[in-house]
């Protein structure tokens, strides 16, 4: 039984409750820094580190954080981790730090991270909070890679800076500009909705909605 819970904690954030594609959280970095795959990976890793570190600390300290000041305390913890990531990236991998620029500081206001602290890490054991953070961080990374890959491929004809579509391909410049982020996200969500709908038609019995989400018309017992 415990293994199932652990697996569920880990897997849930990766796909079924993907922070970007399903919960619509953390959209700011998902739109802003996904113009190349390299930027997506760096942002995904930095966010992963902050999320895991914050979840660990929040679940460890939850007993000592009074309810009234919990949000301030979570933000303090998240901001500390972000500052550390910022300084460590600048010291260890200055090139990546340069590419991400101001967006690292903005991880503080990524509501996906604060959301996981409030909804999960502050109410569960350290182990479960860590699994949840790893799953959610991986889900965020997957969404960032999907968006970054799509945008770099169409907008620049390349993946990770390596040209894959050949010299005859005329890049869709708009895809690496800010509107391209919205187009890509919209397209991804559309595709996802279609894919889920299709899955539901084929095997309606195993259809399961994320916790707390139930569309109108779905009258089956949860």
């Amino acid at each position, binding site marked *: 039984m415990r293994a199932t819970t652990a697996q569920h904690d880990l897997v849930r954030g990766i796909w079924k409750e993907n922070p970007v594609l399903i919960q619509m959280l953390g959209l700011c970095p998902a739109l802003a820094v996904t113009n190349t795959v390299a930027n997506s990976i760096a942002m995904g890793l930095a966010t992963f580190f902050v999320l895991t570190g914050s979840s660990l600390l929040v679940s460890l300290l939850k007993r000592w954080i*009074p309810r009234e000041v919990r949000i301030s305390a979570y933000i303090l913890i998240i901001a500390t981790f972000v500052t550390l990531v910022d300084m460590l990236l600048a010291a260890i991998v200055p090139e990546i730090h340069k590419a991400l620029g101001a967006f690292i500081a903005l991880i503080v206001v990524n509501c996906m991270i604060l959301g996981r602290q409030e909804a999960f890490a502050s109410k569960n054991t350290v182990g479960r909070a860590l699994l949840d953070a790893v799953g959610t961080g991986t889900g965020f990374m997957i969404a960032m890679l999907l968006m970054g890959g799509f945008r770099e491929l169409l907008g620049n004809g390349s993946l990770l800076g390596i040209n894959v579509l050949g010299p005859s391909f005329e890049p869709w410049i708009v895809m690496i500009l800010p509107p391209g982020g919205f187009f890509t996200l919209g397209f991804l969500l559309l595709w996802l909705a279609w894919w889920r709908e299709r899955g539901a038609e084929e095997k309606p019995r195993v259809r399961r909605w994320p916790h707390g989400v139930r569309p109108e018309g779905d009258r089956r017992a949860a």
Partner: protein
Amino acid sequence: MSQELPVRPHVPSWKLIATLAVAGVAAGLLIVSVHLWTQPRILEHQARALREAVREVLGAPETTTTLYLIEGALTEELPPGVDSLSVERVFLGFDESGQRMGVAISGGEPGFQDVINLIFGYDHASARVLGMKVLDNKETPGLGDKIVKDSSFVAEFVGARAPLAGIKPGSGSGAESEIDMITGATISSRAVIAIINHRVEAVAPLLDQYFRSAAVEPGASSTVAGAGGGP
């Protein structure tokens, strides 16, 4: 109504303040200790990047010497108590025989997204640019960042005569000061050209003054060449 709501135990204010204060102090200490570890490394990276950039735009000089802008004049001597990073600097490069190769000048101005910082080599006698390298930019990938990635644009600066003039590709008259701007990155290209022109305008009179005073003192140039040092 209100009596039916569950009553939470009252937490005294001092406890809330104390919790946040302790957390704040702990966070501060952590940040300071990591800062102490990372700061020298960050400065080292920046110094190395600058050193490489100076070498690149001057054409691999044998020795370089740093000139500081102190009280409106260029000088090799940094007054005691002044941080070398806080004053404006240019870098003089010399070849093996002690001949002056040029001056590396850095500058920054707003581009399309954010400030573009670059460094360029400048030969004062002929008023020619020796080379240009963008140090730092946040221009649009695929468009504005061609000021870095488009090697033919970067190569155009080599040997161009200041003040530079940006022109539409193909519309030039073949003058030495003309730089073909990048299609789709007009603002970024124009910013690069403007930075170089403005910096030449500002630094050229200072160089005039410096070289005049250096020429008066006999043997000044050989001590400069031997002084070595670096950015």
